[in-house]
């Protein structure tokens, strides 16, 4: 029929296009029955052509002075309908050959770039072409990125980059990842980004000194980073190479785990990895002098809680105790080597045996009643069994087990087996240590990355705690200090706004449908929100400041093992951990299930 002429450049009476859309046949024309705006417009797809979601397109608009604006955009929605049909049931008549109708397809395009930046709507009738190769880079502003960090592949298997300027603090910092558990998103992607950071060359010479601190909060996925993944086949390897990366394990990894409870030798408590793991804990002297007590109290900064005054007073007093060379402290004439002993001593100090004698106000704070003191003691005592193995001076050379975040390029701190209270304590203390070290160094470079999942636990929206304060410090001042937080959570709506808001890069994996509707994901267009609820494993939406539209990326299967069954025997990078053990996984003692993922889902088996 007459309407089926394929569109040509001449169809609009415009001169032959150059630049943005030269050469390729038009896939369609900007249509005129829906408003075309500089923020979005519809393209009628020409007969015999197709556009699909995530396609990148280019078109032009001629200005009155003869200059040309090149407009680039991303297809975010496509619809097809019968024109000439009025009733839903008309489709049967049309299929029967009784009622004439035309199928029309239209794609919604969200502009990603105007070159030069003159924000005009494209004119109806303008031919639209697919942007490929260098044009695609222009469309996605990759051509203006000096330091590109490979961040994954588009669905068309073309590389997608992040601008390092928005990660390392030059123009912005921090990465925030949301997504439900179990679809290989958050930590897998965070580690992939780290791998890309260290091996892509984007960091240049700084890569060697850049450090990453990773908290392993769930499972044991991150305990095998230093072992190559035997499930990475040629296809997956090719995906790494398409991004300019070489698949392999992380090179310089230190793995720290808490000591086993009740074990006087303080052997690390990890399940499947028996070797190459060093224990970490703090001496009683560290605990007192580094003022770690508040981190045992999740709500210690909450002004409404009376006992926080006691916490502050006790912390100040503990800092003045005399330490011994082996990490113990002297307290009221007693030598304190364990946390329970410290709690007992504190109890004696705060609750005098003679009830008529008021407690020492230097320890309790002024005008504090005995009820408040008792509340403090109760809370402290309840923490005892969760952290006693982490605070101790009962083994030889206890000081040697202090955390050294500088020794390895990647330091994994395993806290997955700890009680929530102990997790918060470790995260808070380690973060503060990293933060203070950076503050003291006075230089943003080399960068310190911190990967922390379950941010909702450590920086919840509705309460205050020392850990949250540290995270807020990292989020707000880390950019200038060179600390980059790669935070993750299932639900961004439950995380402190300022932590998420300070992240320049926002990433979304599969979301719960109710969660996807929340304002926290306002950077996702409506269709992307819908799609986020059905994203398949290994796919994420990437929102970065350079692009007004989030991009869908797929990242390759981890080339490092995420569980013992995946580890290449003896193939890991060799490194020496802080306890002097070699790093091979004891593969004969591991309890992996040995089953590889099914071929069609490279991410099967990943848990977070």
């Amino acid at each position, binding site marked *: 029929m007459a309407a089926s002429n394929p569109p040509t450049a001449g169809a609009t009476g415009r001169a032959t296009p150059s630049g943005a859309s030269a050469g390729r046949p038009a896939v369609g024309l900007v249509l005129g029955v829906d408003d075309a705006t500089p923020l979005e417009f519809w393209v009628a797809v020409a007969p015999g052509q197709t556009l699909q979601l995530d396609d990148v397109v280019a078109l032009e608009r001629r200005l009155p002075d003869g200059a040309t604006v090149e407009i680039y955009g991303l297809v975010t929605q496509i619809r097809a309908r019968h024109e000439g049909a009025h009733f839903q049931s008309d489709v049967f008549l049309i299929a029967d050959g*009784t*009622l004439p109708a035309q199928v029309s397809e239209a794609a919604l395009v969200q502009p990603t770039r105007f070159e030069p930046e003159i924000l005009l709507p494209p004119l109806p009738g303008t031919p639209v072409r697919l942007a490929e190769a260098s044009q695609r880079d222009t469309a996605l502003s990759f051509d203006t990125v000096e330091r590109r960090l490979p961040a994954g592949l588009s669905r068309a298997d073309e590389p997608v980059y992040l601008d390092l300027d928005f990660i390392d603090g030059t123009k912005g910092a921090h990465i925030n990842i949301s997504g439900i558990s179990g679809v290989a998103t958050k930590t897998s992607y965070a580690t992939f980004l780290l791998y890309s950071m260290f091996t892509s060359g984007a960091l240049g010479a700084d890569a060697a000194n850049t450090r990453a601190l990773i908290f392993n909060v769930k499972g044991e996925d991150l305990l095998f980073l230093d072992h190559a993944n035997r499930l990475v086949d040629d296809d997956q390897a090719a995906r790494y190479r398409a991004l300019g990366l070489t698949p392999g394990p992380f090179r310089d990894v230190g793995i720290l785990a808490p000591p086993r409870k009740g074990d006087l030798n303080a052997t690390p408590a990890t399940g499947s990895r028996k070797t190459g793991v060093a224990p970490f804990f703090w001496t009683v002297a560290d605990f007192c002098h580094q003022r770690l007590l508040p981190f045992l109290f999740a709500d210690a900064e909450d002004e409404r809680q009376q006992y926080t005054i006691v916490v502050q007073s006790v912390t100040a007093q503990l800092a003045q105790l005399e330490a011994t060379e082996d990490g113990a402290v002297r307290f009221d004439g007693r030598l304190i080597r364990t946390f329970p002993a410290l709690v007992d001593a504190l109890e004696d100090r705060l609750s005098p045996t003679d009830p008529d004698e008021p407690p020492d106000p230097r320890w309790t704070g002024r005008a504090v009643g005995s009820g408040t003191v008792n509340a403090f003691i109760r809370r402290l005592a309840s923490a005892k069994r969760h952290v006693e193995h982490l605070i101790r001076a009962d083994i030889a050379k206890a000081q040697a087990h202090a955390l050294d975040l500088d020794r390895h390029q990647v330091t994994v701190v395993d806290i997955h087996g700890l009680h929530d209270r102990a997790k918060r304590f470790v995260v808070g203390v380690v973060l503060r240590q990293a933060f203070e070290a950076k503050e003291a160094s006075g230089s943003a470079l080399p960068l310190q990355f911190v990967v922390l999942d379950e941010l909702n636990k450590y920086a919840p929206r509705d309460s205050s705690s020392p850990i949250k304060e540290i995270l807020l410090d990292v989020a707000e001042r880390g950019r200038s200090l060179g600390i980059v937080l790669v935070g993750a959570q299932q639900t961004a709506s439950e995380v402190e706004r300022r932590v998420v808001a300070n992240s320049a890069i926002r990433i979304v994996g599969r979301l719960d449908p109710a969660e996807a509707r929340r304002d926290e994901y306002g950077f996702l267009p409506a269709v992307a929100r819908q799609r986020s609820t059905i994203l398949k494993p290994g796919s994420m939406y990437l929102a970065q400041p350079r692009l007004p539209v989030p991009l869908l990326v797929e990242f390759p299967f981890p080339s490092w093992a995420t569980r013992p069954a995946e580890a290449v025997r003896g193939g890991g990078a060799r490194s020496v951990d802080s306890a002097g053990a070699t790093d091979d996984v004891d593969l004969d003692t591991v309890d992996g299930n040995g089953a590889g993922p099914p071929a069609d889902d490279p991410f099967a088996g990943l848990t977070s």
Partner: protein
Amino acid sequence: MSAGPAMRFAVDTWAPDYGTSREEQLQEASRPVDVEVEVLPDRWVPITPDPAVRPAGAITFVDGVRRIDARIWIGEPDGFDRPGVCATVAAGAVRCLPGRATIESVLVERALFSASPVATDLDVGAAGRYLLKPTPIASDEALYLAVHNHMMSVEERLSDELEEPGLVVYDGRLGPRNGPESAGYVKSQHVQYLESTDLQAVIGALEPGQRTPLFHIGGELPNWSWYLRLPGPRSHSMSGIVRVELPGLGDVSDAVERADLLSRTLPRFASESHKDARAPQNLYPIAGLERELRRRLGDARLLDRALRQRAADSAGHAAVSAARSAAG
């Protein structure tokens, strides 16, 4: 833009629809009717077309639409204004194959109908150009008839250009379009061809899918014709009744064969009342084609604006020349 002196005209302030209520009530010259061609009058009963006749696989429907865009008044040297009608007509064909109905071609034409001797083509810029079609008489009736005839001629031109049209059904009377495969499809019955009430009763007795015996309508352009009842709810005796006509040439047995074929083919296309105000007679392909044609006529308000703009320009131009001649 046309060169030479511009035609001076004004667009009537009344909406063009006023005065067009006469529609299709074109006078039917009384024509001789022969009801004895298939069976004798006393044997007239409803006929069920032979079920062995397979409905046509391919059929083309041709239809046209017209719209009065504006009634204008053309200024003449004697100081009087003569009427004119600016109209757009469109004709199209839809080819129905099993599983696929396609609009094959569409012709759209704009024309100015007037008896004024000073009338010229009317160029309205991007909206198009109204080609002058002179009419002998300036009456409203003559102008509207000219619009109708122009539409018929566009339909005819269009059907001449169809490739392998096969069975062609024209919406409305066949008129001069008497190709061997042509049929006319008359939805509304304004003329009583059957004088005898006994014969008229046969129409009322038709069941869906049944037809009357053939009758022959004489005159300058003779036709074979019959009534057919389409499937659908029956609210009165003429519900779903259409009259179909063929060119009145050749042998009656050929005509009977074609009547059976058409009577077997057309009911499939009958529309349902919730989808079409003129159901079931307004066949789906024709309804769909008409919708498309009306769309192709272009936006009436745009044309109206373009015409009024042009009229204002012409008045301004005339005023300037008048002022010049006065000054000279």
